[in-house]
């Protein structure tokens, strides 16, 4: 069953939120391969399959989290969606326009509609540009606004939306702002051209733990006010839980599980999801914390056939090492790529 059909099915069960929408963004069989040079002095070339056959749909007004660790391909995926990288094969359709084929004016229109908040608040602002310049550039380039007064007005408006005082920060340079403030400027930059789809690439990872909730709240507030669709890329399940309607879990370039966030995080099907859940730090009393050693991705080694996760999986059986599992429905509304999925045959409540 395709994801659309699944969602539709759940809709019939009474979840009106996701009923009858067309996908805003539709990704099919995306493949991205990099050729990397290994070693300084030896010229061994290794092929890195960053994204392997990803298919995903994003619906209007929803927040979809893509969760994965480094090496999962999530950043490469984001870059392809933003037309910063070209995939080797596969298609990305935004409102039925093929993103990989966009040029010129159409590309500008696309960029006006689809924006990104970058991860690094320190590196994604040009150190020589003040806040006004940084935020006004997208408005000038993508919305075609030239008048100085109008620009100042629009910039001030969006700065206020992200909780910054325009008169205080407009003329500041990045190094005069704190990490949290810089990230808000990043959000302002992204919202300046009034986009419909916002990709947030690890928006709070580089902020202090105490600032994360504030910035995520801001994103949620903005999403509701502007009716945005958000693709949240993160490695932190806690962010995914409080923000997103649906979550997709990525591992080594593939989607291993996707479905409604609450289901995935409470009763995951895929052992990898369970692994990340267990590893996510929680505020607990000392006696309640258990620490287990699990082999890392490198220690697991490369896998020639079968499931990529098998070497690290507690539940792996011979079929896992033999045949690569497909992403199939394991319960009413979630898909998982696993031969021995967890939490199946249970009443899927919540």
């Amino acid at each position, binding site marked *: 069953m395709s994801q659309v059909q699944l969602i539709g099915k759940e809709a019939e069960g009474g979840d009106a939120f996701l009923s009858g929408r067309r996908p805003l963004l539709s990704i099919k069989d995306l493949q991205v391969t990099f050729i990397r040079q290994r070693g300084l002095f030896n010229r061994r070339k290794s092929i890195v399959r960053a994204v392997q056959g990803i298919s995903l749909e994003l619906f209007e007004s929803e927040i979809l989290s893509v969760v994965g660790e480094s090496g999962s391909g999530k950043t490469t995926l984001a870059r392809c969606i933003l037309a910063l990288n070209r995939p080797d094969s596969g298609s990305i359709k935004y409102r039925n326009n093929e993103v990989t084929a966009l040029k010129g004016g159409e590309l500008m229109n696309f960029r006006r509609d689809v924006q990104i908040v970058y991860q690094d608040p320190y590196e994604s602002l*040009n150190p020589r540009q003040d806040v006004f310049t940084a935020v006004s550039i997208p408005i000038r380039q993508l919305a075609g606004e030239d008048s100085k007064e109008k620009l100042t007005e629009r910039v001030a408006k969006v700065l206020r939306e992200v909780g910054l005082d325009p008169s205080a920060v407009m003329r500041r340079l990045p*190094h005069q702002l704190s990490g949290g403030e810089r990230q808000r400027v990043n959000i302002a930059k992204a919202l300046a051209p009034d986009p419909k789809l916002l990709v947030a690439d690890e928006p709070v990872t580089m902020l202090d733990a105490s600032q994360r909730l504030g910035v995520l709240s801001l994103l949620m507030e903005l999403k509701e006010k502007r009716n945005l669709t958000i693709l949240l890329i993160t490695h932190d399940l806690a962010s995914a839980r409080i923000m997103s309607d649906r979550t997709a879990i990525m591992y080594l370039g593939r989607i291993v599980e996707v479905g409604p966030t609450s289901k995935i995080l409470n009763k995951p099907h895929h052992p990898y999801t369970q692994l990340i859940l267990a590893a996510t730090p929680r505020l607990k009393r000392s006696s309640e914390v258990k620490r287990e050693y699990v082999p890392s991705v490198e220690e697991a080694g490369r896998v020639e056939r079968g499931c990529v996760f098998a070497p690290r999986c507690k539940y792996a059986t011979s079929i896992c090492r033999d045949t690569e599992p497909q992403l199939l429905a394991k319960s009413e509304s979630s898909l998982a790529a696993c031969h021995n999925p967890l939490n199946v045959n249970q009443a899927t409540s919540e």
Partner: protein
Amino acid sequence: MSIVESSSKVTTRLKGSVLGALFRSRPAKLGGLLLLAFFIIIIAGTFLTPYNPYENTPDVNAPPSFAHPFGTDNVGHDLFSQVVFGAYSSMYVGLVSAIGSSIIGVVVGTLAGYYRRLEGILTGTGDIILTFPAFPLLILLGSMYPPTDELLIALLILVLWAPIARAVRSQVLSLKERPYVDSARTGGMKDRQIIVQILMPQVVSIAVAYFVLSVAAAVVLVTSLEFLGVGNPDIVSWGSILYWAQQFAFYLGDWWWVLGPGLSITLVALGFALIGFSIEEVMNPRLRV
């Protein structure tokens, strides 16, 4: 502020404190002093010297004296006047070559760094020029065409653009990967705008360092070429003085003949080189951040 935040403060002080740091650097101050001294002497000399550099005086083969600070040559030319007037020619060629090669170097380097497709051809050409022995090449080409200042300038530019292009290219390569370049792209900036508005200003600093060093190199190169006979020995320049000195001074025992040009080149080349190296030094720690 955290350590992270204060270190990024350093990066952005780039523009302002480059000059500041330069003023504090001792080598740069020394270099500046040398150039200033040179400048003063030349300007003063142009107005104060009573002799025309082409004028044959009866006072031939005279060692340095009050009347002739650098002495005279075998036909009585006042060598001091020759050095002063020759300075204009040598400096003109040196500066124009440096400017020309810097511009070409920056443009080629930026394009090679930004567009991966062009990289092959551009860096390949650059590499060929860098590995080819400059001097023999210049002499060969110089002797094939009529000797003019313009020829010399063209030759020097041919040789000097490559190191600049290489330095600029590597900086562009690393800058191109910075998130704010991606951010500019998703913000709607086109390639051309990104190159001109974002990358080039960052490249200016290293270009200036190389420019200054190129002046020093160019002055030495052009003088050497003229000394070897490339270029017109009848038009006075430091190289031409040395050319004639080579013909006659050793037979005649006129040891002072090379004094003028030698001193001048040392002052100028050393001056520019010191400043150039100081700029590079000031640039480097920031470049790494």
